[in-house]
């Protein structure tokens, strides 16, 4: 309805501007006059509607509770809320019957109240739209009216609003993680969480149950994360990624490079769930056999090595393209000078190019580490659940991301220490990756500036 009025007013403004144009030049094209009018009609009315809808829910609740059926409801707040919720769903025909018998009787009241308040809101919005339309149509426009400028001010606001969403997302992440973590630290002391050596997130329902004291020491989780993501994966990814970048930029022919590079990029595009399945199905049993044949009795079929190896392979294109960029940023004159002095190509690469490109490579490696420790599916599928504090890569370790998934995918209450612990882990993970990213970005930027 509001939109209808808006388009009508916009159309009238457009034709009036067209008529004006026959009398001489306008400042703005007629279409801008139309858009200008439509915007002024539609935006305030929609804002009113948007502000009305949360108020409406509250008013409906009040009205329903004031009705005779509502007065009969139990006083206990959570029970009353759940009955109201069901009544709302019945009124919307989302469910046939509620769990609570009271809700069926309440449903017609909800529908009635909602209908009443929705029509109040709607009429208010229409009135506002009509009012704006009246003002716009009655005011006389001269040729010099700058409709384009006005429309563009709206557009500018829209653009700015869109770019603010990034900030809101960051804020949302920080606030939601922080909020739930604080609630967790009320249950479990923060020092126990950060420095505890044992992790077994079992909160007993009764105090006398066996194993009633859950342990939330996160050290084993972080050790497992570092072992898989920062040690094993990097041992695979750094040499392979760096050498591939060197080969592709320095040795390979133009044609080979044009083919091999996109194919390597496929490695980065394969979904992580595929890597995880591959690691669990093919790599892990193989690693276990190797471990046993080497005489390691404790070799697990969920070894840290299997997850780390596959993760390393996944990271290769990432390291390779970062190294590629930083090698390409080294000025040609430096390698030319080295070659002119009689150094061979490999000597030039090792003694001139790599030292010069080192900051960029280090920045790339830091970004790769941050990606590896935040990686979830490979470790969920291929690494274990037991929180072991071990340096043996054939044994099973668990990671932060595995535990977050484990804690949040069961069927428990949202407020239990288990689910809140997941948010605390997420907060620490977020902070670690944030610091790594910031360091890496600064290093890379400084390094780029050094050669520009």
């Amino acid at each position, binding site marked *: 309805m509001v939109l209808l009025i808006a388009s009508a007013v916009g159309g009238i403004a457009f034709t009036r501007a067209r008529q004006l144009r026959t009398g001489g030049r306008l400042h703005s094209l007629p279409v801008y006059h139309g858009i200008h009018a439509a915007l002024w009609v539609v935006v305030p009315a929609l804002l009113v509607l948007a502000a009305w809808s949360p108020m409406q829910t509250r008013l409906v609740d009040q009205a329903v509770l004031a009705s005779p059926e509502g007065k009969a409801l139990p006083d206990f707040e959570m029970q009353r809320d759940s009955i109201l919720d069901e009544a709302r769903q019945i009124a919307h025909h989302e469910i046939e019957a509620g769990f609570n018998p009271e809700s069926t009787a309440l449903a017609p009241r909800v529908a009635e109240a909602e209908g009443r308040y929705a029509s109040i809101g709607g009429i208010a919005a229409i009135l506002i739209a009509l009012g704006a339309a009246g003002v716009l149509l009655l005011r006389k426009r001269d040729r010099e009216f700058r409709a384009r400028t006005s429309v563009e001010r709206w557009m500018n606001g829209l653009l700015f609003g869109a770019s603010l969403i990034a900030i809101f997302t960051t804020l949302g992440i920080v606030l939601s*993680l922080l909020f739930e973590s604080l609630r967790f630290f009320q249950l479990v002391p923060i020092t126990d969480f950060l420095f505890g050596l044992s992790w077994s997130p079992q909160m007993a329902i009764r105090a006398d149950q066996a194993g009633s004291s859950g342990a939330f020491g996160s050290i084993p989780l972080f050790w497992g994360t570092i072992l898989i993501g920062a040690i094993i994966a990097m041992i695979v990814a750094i040499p392979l990624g760096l050498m591939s970048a*060197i080969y592709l930029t320095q040795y390979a022919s133009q044609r080979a490079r044009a083919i091999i590079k996109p194919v390597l990029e496929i490695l980065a595009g*394969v979904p992580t769930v595929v890597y995880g399945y591959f690691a669990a199905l093919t790599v892990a049993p193989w690693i276990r056999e190797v471990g046993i044949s080497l005489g390691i009795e404790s070799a697990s079929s969920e070894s840290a090595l299997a997850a780390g190896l596959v993760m390393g392979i996944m990271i290769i294109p990432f390291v390779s393209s970062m190294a590629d960029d930083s090698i390409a940023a080294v000025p040609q004159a430096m390698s030319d000078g080295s070659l002119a002095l009689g150094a061979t190509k490999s000597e030039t690469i090792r003694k001139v190019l790599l030292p010069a490109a080192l900051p960029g490579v280090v920045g790339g490696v830091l970004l790769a580490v941050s990606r590896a420790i935040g990686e979830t599916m490979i470790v969920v599928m291929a690494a274990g659940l037991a929180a072991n504090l071990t340096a043996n890569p054939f044994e099973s370790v668990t990671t932060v991301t595995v535990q977050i998934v484990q804690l949040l995918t069961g069927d428990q209450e949202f407020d239990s220490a288990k689910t809140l612990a997941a948010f605390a882990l997420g907060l620490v993970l977020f902070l670690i990756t944030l610091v790594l990213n910031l360091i890496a970005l600064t290093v890379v930027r400084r390094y780029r500036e050094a050669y520009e």
Partner: protein
Amino acid sequence: MNSVAAEAAMTRWTGDAMQSRLRKRYRSERLFKLLGFAAVGISLAFLAFLLGTMLWKGAGGLSLGFLTMSDSTDPATAGVWGALKGSFLTIVVTMGLAFPVGVLSAIYLEEFATRNRWTDMIEVSINNLAAVPSIIFGLLGLAVFLNFMHLPRSAPLVGGLTLALMTMPVIVIAGRNAIQAVPPSIREAALGVGASKMQVVFHHVLPLALPGILTGTIIGMARALGETAPLLMIGMRAFIAVPPSGITDPSSVLPVQIFLWSDEVDRAFVEKTSAAIIVLLVFMLVMNGLAIYLRNRFEQRW
């Protein structure tokens, strides 16, 4: 006198000492080149091995029925249609939100923003969001969309919202690069004939930058399509046998379906899982191929 003669002997090209040193240097040169070649070879071999394994294990599971049936506890009647439909709905929501917002904020940051503390903050948070682990976005979705806004669990709507927040920074970064690549002469010419700043951007810069933006968007969408972890967080892991009919129905998506099947004990599900992976990889390849085609077809060098 003696040392000079020794040095002369050392540096004579035809001398034995020089020749052996040269041989050593050339040997290490060849070794280094070989190492580089081996690194590329190992990576490519791994990729071939991975794809080969999936094809070998899953080719038998591909059939028309597999594509048209939905999830089931019986491997004989389990298919991916429900998951495909869920993935499609989720991606549509993601695209519908992330593309306009991403493009608009890229335009704002490149063309309109004056450098001040606000725009610096926006830039830092966009660059950082692009590197935040995906599971963190899942936690955000769980805390904000499910527990705070009470949107329906397991629905493509929530999945799409979460993935949109994740993909948006990728689109912004790609969009900014594409807009930067449009030469200033185009803007100056348009300004010169009386266009306003907004008209310059929307009539001239944006159409020229669009292929680049689309390439980045498709790559971001392919990533969102393969994403699993954040969707597990918002509850898209329930067993759902009926394909979703709207964006608020509970549904599964293809990567999560793969994850769920990989947990099944029944041996027959190994084939199903691999077949589902083939389907997923085909979609990814098509999307990436489309992106590369767009880049090659419309790329302009000024």
